[in-house]
């Protein structure tokens, strides 16, 4: 998990510090493991929350819900990632954090992490990196929601999950299948389209031999074509990283 490749386009002079920060955080969090069931709301919007988490296994998400039934999955958290880092700085979380699949997390009280953050630049760099990385992904996602077609968004999502799972060593670096616990309704809430539309695009992908999503399992049959469809929405880092687009995709 301490692979420098995980730190997209980091400044080379920060690499040592980021890797050391990763190691030190692991030591800080060791022994705090908790099992969380799928469906649990870990953090409620509008509340103060005292903990920062690292996802060890499983999936979680940040989600905002409206009273008229509209939900938006804002971010999906995958193994190895820190989340709720804002607990250190803000007295209120504005969105829910929900567990999508049975998960194991580690957690640390924000006071303890803040003490370490102030005392150790490596830990501070690693925490800030998580925010920077989330911002990179959110920028891509905002671009996708504003400018991308439904098909481009879904292709991007399948590639994004693959890349992040590979870089966290949850799956092999060249794996073309992975477990994905999101239902079609949850995919729709992340993609900003309806479940009917998700279903229709998945059918097209399946019929064209590009990818299939069935029973919580993603199988990418033609990564090159999936990359071609996602390409307008991929950022410069993703376009050049084989864990996202494969070796052929880099030259698309």
């Amino acid at each position, binding site marked *: 998990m301490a692979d420098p490749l995980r730190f997209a386009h980091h400044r080379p002079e920060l690499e040592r510090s980021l890797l050391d920060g990763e190691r030190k955080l692991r030591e800080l969090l060791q022994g705090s493991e908790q099992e969380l069931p799928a469906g649990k709301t870990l953090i409620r919007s509008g509340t103060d929350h005292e903990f920062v988490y690292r996802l060890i296994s499983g999936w979680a998400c940040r989600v905002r819900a409206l009273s008229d039934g*509209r939900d938006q999955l804002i971010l999906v958290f995958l193994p190895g990632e820190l989340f709720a880092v804002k607990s250190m700085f803000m007295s209120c979380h504005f969105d829910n954090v929900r567990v999508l699949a049975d998960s194991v997390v580690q957690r640390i009280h924000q006071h303890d992490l803040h003490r370490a953050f102030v005392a150790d630049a490596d830990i501070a760099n690693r925490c800030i990196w998580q925010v920077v990385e989330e911002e990179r992904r959110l920028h891509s996602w905002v671009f996708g929601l504003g400018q991308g077609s439904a098909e481009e968004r879904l292709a991007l999502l399948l590639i994004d999950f693959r890349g992040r799972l590979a870089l966290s060593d949850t799956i092999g670096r060249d794996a073309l299948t992975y477990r994905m616990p999101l239902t079609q309704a949850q995919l729709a809430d992340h993609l900003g389209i309806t479940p009917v539309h998700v279903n229709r695009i998945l059918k097209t992908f399946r019929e064209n031999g590009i990818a299939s999503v069935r029973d919580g399992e993603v199988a990418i049959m033609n990564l090159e074509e999936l990359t071609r469809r996602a390409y307008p929405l991929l950022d410069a880092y993703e376009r050049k990283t084989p864990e996202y687009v494969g070796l052929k995709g880099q030259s698309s």
Partner: protein
Amino acid sequence: MSESRQEDGALGSDEIRLHLAYAEASIMLLECLMLVLIERKIVPLDVLVDAVETAIEAKKSQVKDRAHPQIAAVAAGVLAQVGNSLAAAGHDGAYRAPEGP
């Protein structure tokens, strides 16, 4: 009369479930048909999105008029999702209405 209907004429849970199922099936079928119309380039995308937006406006005015405001608000939300979703079908060369003169 359905077995599930109450003595006072109110709908019972079985009947409500049936109505909800019809409502859900209807909106899904409608959306699917609209996607087919767009994909086959039969109706311009912007015309369909405009139709959904008209429906949203109608629902929102029902909220203002206090006509089933709670249901109307959720219905407007459902329609907004359908409208946004349809709009996302349109980046791949979907048929759009010709520009005006």
